């Protein structure tokens, strides 16, 4: 990058082709799904969910920048705020689960059925 050339952030983003973002996001998202489906530790599942959320965020920012439309970035801020709230609630639930069952294995919580 030339120091004389003032480059804006969208330009930086646009220096990488859009396909790369797509592939990267999809990879992150799939990793998240696999994590959710295969892991039994509640915290890891939680982290996987966050991974999926952020994969989507990444895509939104990329598209927004390529299309020069700020709506996508506004969306990302919203998602971050809501995700933060969701994480606090979710972690609180996990803490309570741990206090009650002395474990954060989701298999221990199978009493809630028919």
């Amino acid at each position, binding site marked *: 990058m030339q120091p004389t050339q003032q480059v804006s952030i969208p330009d930086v983003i646009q220096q990488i082709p859009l396909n790369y973002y797509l592939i990267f996001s999809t990879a992150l998202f799939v990793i998240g*799904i696999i994590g*959710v*489906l295969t892991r*039994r530790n509640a915290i890891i*599942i939680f982290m996987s969910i966050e991974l999926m959320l952020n994969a989507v965020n990444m895509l939104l920012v990329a598209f927004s920048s390529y299309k020069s439309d700020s709506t996508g970035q506004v969306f990302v801020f919203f998602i971050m705020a809501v995700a933060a709230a969701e994480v606090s609630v979710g972690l609180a639930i996990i803490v309570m689960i741990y206090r009650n069952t002395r474990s954060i294995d*989701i*298999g221990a*919580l*199978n*009493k*809630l*059925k*028919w």
Partner: protein
Amino acid sequence: MPICVSTYAVFDCMTPELLCILIPLLPLLGFIINGLGFRKVPASLVGPLAVAGPVLSFLAVLSLFSNFRAGGNQPLKATLFDWISVADLHINFAFQIDQLSLIMLLIVTGIGSLIHLYSIGYMKHDEGYGKFMAFLNLFLFFMLLLVMGSNFVIMFIGWEGVGLCSYLLIGFWNTNTSYNNAARKAFVMNRIGDLGFLLGIFLIFTTFGSVEYTEVFSAATGFAVGDKTVLAIALLLFVGAMGKSAQIPLFTWLPDAMAGPTPVSALIHAATMVTAGIYMVVRSNVLYTLAPQALEIMGGIAIATALLGATIGLMQNDIKKVLAYSTVSQLGYMFLGLSVAAYTGGMFHVLTHAFFKALLFLGAGSVIHAMSNEQDIRNMGGLRKYLPITFWTFLIGTIAIAGIPPFAGFFSKDEILAHVWEHNKLLWGLGILGSAMTSFYMFRLLFLTFFGEFRGTPEQKHHLHESPLSMTIPLMVLAVLSVVGGFLNVPHALGGHSMLAEFMAPLYEGSQQVNPSAFEGPTMGSSEELMLMAISAGVALLAAGVAYGMYVRSATVPAADSVPRSIPAQVVYNKFYIDEFYERLIVRPVRALGDGFYSFGEFVIDGVVGAVSWLVKTIAGQLRLVQNGSIGSYMFAMVLSIALIIALRFFVNWTTILAYLNF
């Protein structure tokens, strides 16, 4: 007594309108206090509270009556409030006080008071004493509405109300199934009549545009005699009267109604409620005078009822059943009188019948009380020695109903029969036959109950006692009335002035206007009238003599039920199998129809509903297994579903598919 006098003085100061409101209100208050406070009002207070209402009402009626006489017999109308006002329909809640309603008011409150007093003695030891008195008060309230109302709709309220009270009181001892059945029977049969009455009211409204008596009857005077609409109205109203006043074919409820306590039989099923039909016909006399065909039909039904009731009465062995069939028969006589336009005669018989039939029922109640609830006269006999007051009063009642001069029944029955004679000689002959039978079965009842040797068990004999004063005072008062009641309307042939007829004459002005020929004075001479009287009195005495010969001289006692009877006797003893006939002809088909509908509902409708709920339940039972509590599987399902949605959204070409399906 001094209380009564001072209360009367208070009533005398009131305006007639206020009195009109008080008259039905006082028994209603009694009902509310005793009814709501049942089991809470102390037993010693129940009686006085219940009797106070009717007695005060009676005093108010007396005051109203003297006002009425003093005011020159001017009809009075007291409007309480505007009740129903819809489009063309305006119904005031108003009371009409005229000659007819005053006579009925005097009967209802006067005899009602006596019977309330009697009930204190009769029902004191019953568990439902307070409830009983409350129902009696309620009955009186509705009966007063019935006779005081100034239009057909208020009459209908009273009509239904007394039917309800009749139902409640017949089935008063409601632990006994057969009593409950009797109550239901009375209610259902009355409903059949009520339907006719209701249709009659509708037709009156569509024809005359009002249901107010004064307006309807003055409008009716513009119709010609024999008008078809008026005929239909008269017949429909008569169907109502048939139900309430126990005429063929709706009479079988009345004998069964004897299941109720005896004061009920006396008040409701002898003196007041069952005469409501006669009251209605007399009230609508203009309509009936306009419809001679309706009167013809009424006459046929009336004489048939009178004879049928009397015939069945000849062989009954239950003391109350005899009186019940006698009531049916006497009601037939009243309608017979009405059917020949002898409206005063009919009302006169209502009046005297109220005296002596209430007396007879109360006397029977006194006997039943003494006999520890025994009602079969075959197990009585010789009670004269043990129940002297009851015996003497019962004797007076018997003479009065048998039509032996100079007691009350003689005058009223003869007035009816004299009018019938002018109208139709055959009807008169049948009427005399019925009157002979009346005399026979009543003296048979008297002799079997009070004469000869006692035929009951030793325990019953030991228990025999005269009833308390609260029961014998009404008997004595009614006995006096049964003796002198007839003098209210002594015919001219016997040197009287026909006071009642003169008093009631203004009621028939409309009738006279529309059909003067029906009201021409007696065409027969005094000697002819005297001869008729002599015949009917002679026949009654003869029948009494025959009864004396059979049941006192030869001391015959009716055979036990198990003894075989000759076929005619068997038929009469079993009340002509009318109940069985109705059972076959109406009750069973209706029940079969009901059973059919019931099965339809039970199997078809319930089947469909049941199948749907079974299906939902079964599917849900399988589906809920999916909720297995394993979070992993939930998440797997979630991911799979999202994948499916995405696949359907992006990889399926819906446009092609929809086009292919021709959407």
